[in-house]
């Protein structure tokens, strides 16, 4: 569970610029900031109107940035995390050698 922030277009942010509202959600557990900020989250009971006039009722979660790029960013984050974890573990092991 983490706090994200929604702007007036329901786009997700990881920090508040002072105009956003906070939402507690577990939808982004394990996701990096770049991934989160490429998504739109429409809460239950609310509606979002796309530029072409189509109305979407919440609760809806969908990417507003190209998902292929978001998935690549998330994969890179996970690789970085794995390398850090491995480096940390190597340090721990060497301390006991």
């Amino acid at each position, binding site marked *: 569970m983490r706090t994200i922030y929604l702007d007036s277009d329901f786009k997700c942010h990881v920090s508040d610029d002072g105009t956003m509202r906070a939402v507690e959600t577990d939808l982004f557990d394990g996701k990096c900031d770049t991934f989160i900020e490429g998504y*739109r989250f429409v809460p*239950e009971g609310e509606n*979002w109107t*796309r530029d*072409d006039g*189509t*109305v*979407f*009722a*919440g*609760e*809806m*979660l*969908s*990417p*507003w*940035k*190209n*998902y*292929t790029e978001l*998935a690549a960013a998330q994969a890179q984050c996970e690789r970085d995390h794995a390398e850090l974890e491995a480096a940390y573990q190597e340090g721990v092991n060497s301390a006991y050698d």
Partner: protein
Amino acid sequence: MIFNLSGGGNPLNFKVVGGTSAPATPAENTIWVNTDTAITGWYFDAEEPNVYNIPTNSSIDWHSMRSPHKLSEGDILNFKIPVSIDFSLEALAIIDVSTGQYYFLRHVDGTKLNAWPEGTKIGLRISKDMYPIVDHNGIGTAYVMAWDSYYHDEGTVWIQTGDASQVEFNALNKNGIQVYPIGAKQYVGGSWVDKTAQIYQNGAWNELVSGYLIKDGEDVTSLTGGWQHATMGMQSNAFVHPDITYNNGAMSVMQTTGTAAAFCITTVNAIDLTDVKTIEATCDAYAQGNSYQGSENWIDLSVATAPNTATTATVNLAKQGAKSGTFALDVSSITGSYYIGFRGMCWVTGGLKLGVNVYNLELKR
């Protein structure tokens, strides 16, 4: 399928017109493309028409170039010479790279064609299945025309076709070629641009929209490949696999026994969502019981990159209860192929009803 017919006697049972307002007195099967760019021609095809540009001659080894497309007998290979080419000795040829066989382009009197002025447009009707590239007969020099880019006339309209459409029609006055239009693009400024288009049928304008995955409760198996049980990344020790049935105008999957259940069904085929903006489901959704144990009582419409991976986009259909209606999921920023599914879980004290009756499931472009 690709066709682009014209000629006397008008064998066609439709016409394609452009403009920023609909024609006032349209004939049946008039396709109106909403555009301010004049329409210079049209194609009907499921995939981008095979029209190739040769931007320059080069000395690239054709073995290093990407594999050409297979063309079948009757297909037309069109290309344009954008710069003046004068091969003093050799003629232009197409090569079937699967056999290495050269086919020289000649005048009807049999002489070889040597000079190709800038802008020359060439259309070749392929008379046998082959994988052609365009070359000039410089054996030992191996000049090969670049293959990778596309050329279309400005204003050309591409009516996209599929296996199913709300507005299918017979393209010919005699005989029958059933066409399933699902969208329109126009070649403007060097690229295909999405255009809204409508067809006049039965006294009304109807939008060219993409095919249904489920239409009036019938699975469009040619698109979905059927439905399968999966997980879409859900973790539960209460997974159930209720039967998928088709009756009363709906595709139904429903679990009504037990007190805890999780289920997920997805299309067997991955569905290309590249040009799809919205997935729309008309359904009755249930995630209900007499009373609830915990908050995880819901049913969603979702898409995922694989049947058992976490969802990429999702919209809730019902939560701790039942709901009927038309539900829309925005997929306008998703490209590529995805599995579309319904998934849910419910933990109740009794009276479990977890599932969905799907009347229509539509991809809207």
